[in-house]
């Protein structure tokens, strides 16, 4: 059963989380994602859940560690500077193999930056976020509808692989309003025999800890974790292809940049240029296979990003630099216009001919 409502991206994340069984939210307000906390504050008390505004981001992520250890669905959300504060906790969660959802509605940086949208935390999100060898599953919604559907997906993946999932959105996605069809969220109960949820005097204590002082054992844990990551790469990579079949120029873009780029690709086609787009939906794992396949028939890549060129490195890695990759970007809270992307497509197209 689905109903249609008009929602902000931030609200869609919050409602979707509730519908798939999340009853624990710990956070600290920061623009442009405060609506997530505000929504949770209104809804959680009505459904027997817990909304808690922590004294800081550091406190909030440690509360997430506690709740995740107990085996419940739990989330936190923040924006760029707040995620940096949480990154110690993210590393500890990876070390403990804890499933949880962390939302980053990015704003321009570095430092406190501004309150307008950005994608400049791509490196931070896709390379782990904190210290140590680890990954999070990183999902990049490009509509309010996807803010909802990928939230549900993020919880499922987190539980399935005992990993932290991150929704990497931006200020525009968080603030924009669009109609959303909310499904009645099916909560699949997942066994968590590892959780510290009470022994009932029937088993040994489950100890959840990221401290491991014997190097041989710590190495083993790292190897095992990367075996798991291999399965995630193999099974969970998600992307959308748009007009790629005969494309000469491949635009790669996610989130708000993909919405802009789609219009530019369409305009390029109208101008007789065979452009197409690959939109990564998972940023980690990055959809390397379609990018590599595109390198076989495309003359060049254009990475459209709201940063100084971060995902472009993954485009080059995935294509093994078989074709040149160009950057089309705005930063500091600015968004590329469809015209800017179209100009870049025309420029590259002319140069290659």
């Amino acid at each position, binding site marked *: 059963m689905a109903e249609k*409502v008009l929602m*902000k991206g931030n*609200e869609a994340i919050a409602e979707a989380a509730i519908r798939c069984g999340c009853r624990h939210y710990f956070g600290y307000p920061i623009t442009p994602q405060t609506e997530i906390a505000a929504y949770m504050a209104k809804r959680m008390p009505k459904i027997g859940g817990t909304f808690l505004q922590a004294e800081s981001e550091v406190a909030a992520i440690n509360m997430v560690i506690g709740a995740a250890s107990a085996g419940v669905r739990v989330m936190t959300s923040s924006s760029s500077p707040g995620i940096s504060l949480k990154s110690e906790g993210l590393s500890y969660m990876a070390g403990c193999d804890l499933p949880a959802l962390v939302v980053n509605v990015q704003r321009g940086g570095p430092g406190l930056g501004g*309150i307008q949208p950005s994608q400049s935390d791509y490196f931070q999100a896709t390379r782990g976020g904190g210290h140590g060898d680890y990954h999070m599953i990183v999902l990049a919604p490009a509509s309010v509808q996807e803010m909802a559907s990928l939230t549900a997906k993020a919880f499922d993946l987190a539980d399935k692989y005992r990993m932290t999932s991150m929704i990497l959105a931006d200020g525009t996605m968080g603030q924009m309003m669009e*109609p959303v069809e909310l499904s009645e969220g099916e909560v699949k109960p997942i066994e968590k025999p590892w959780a510290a949820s009470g022994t009932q005097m029937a088993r040994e204590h489950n100890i959840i800890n990221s401290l491991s002082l014997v190097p041989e054992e710590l190495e083993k844990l790292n190897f095992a974790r990367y075996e798991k990551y291999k399965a995630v790469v193999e099974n969970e990579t998600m992307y959308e292809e748009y007009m790629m079949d005969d494309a000469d120029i491949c635009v790669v873009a996610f989130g708000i940049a993909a919405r802009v780029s789609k219009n530019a690709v369409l305009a390029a086609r109208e101008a007789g240029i065979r452009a197409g787009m690959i939109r990564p939906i998972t940023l980690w794992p990055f959809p390397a296979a379609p990018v590599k396949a595109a390198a076989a028939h495309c003359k060049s890549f254009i990475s459209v990003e709201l940063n100084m060129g971060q995902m472009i490195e993954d485009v080059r890695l995935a294509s093994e630099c078989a074709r040149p990759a160009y950057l089309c970007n705005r930063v500091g809270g600015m968004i590329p216009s469809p015209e800017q992307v179209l100009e870049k497509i025309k420029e590259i197209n002319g140069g290659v001919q």
Partner: protein
Amino acid sequence: MKRVTLFAGHYGSGKTNIAVNYALKLRETHERVLIADLDIVNPYFRTKDSLDELTRAGVRLISSEYANSNVDLPALPTEMYAITDDTSSMAVVDIGGDDRGAYALGRYQPAILEENDYDMLFVCNMYRPLTTTPEDTIQVLREIEAACGIPFTGIVNNSNLGEQTAPEDVLASLPYADQIAWETGLSVRFTSVRADLVPALTGKVETLFPLTLQKKYY
């Protein structure tokens, strides 16, 4: 017609769009019209986004100098007292969402009540997730009244699904708005709809108020 018209309601219910359109409409029949942005909650989607249009039409905008500056600071200019001090102007007041947004109005409540020439209109949208039922909507209405100390005098039905709104969506919301009106003893002053929906709804909705939408994102 009252001299001061206040628009309050749930977060994201469409207050700013309605207030701007309402002020522009008032300007057609009144020489002096001012619109005041009393939103201290939301740093985005402000009355100031329509500054050019308002200026062109000769509507005076009173807004925090921090609005749209990206300085995320809840501040109000001293000029705001013109709402009640300048009784020669028709005043439209755009209030921040929910009870949190309405607290700022409390500062101006004594003068507004004393002059007693105001309409306090509650903007509602059945398609917003926290106000889908009359019951939940009335709860928000009561919270706002408690926060600012001014009782509502009418309802504005702004039920919409953004760009995807079809005439049927508006028609489906009429019983919802009527129920709110009936339970609160207020009347539905008008139903606001995107201007292009007006022809399809004329004759089917009692009082239509056409809206030119303020802002479009990607």
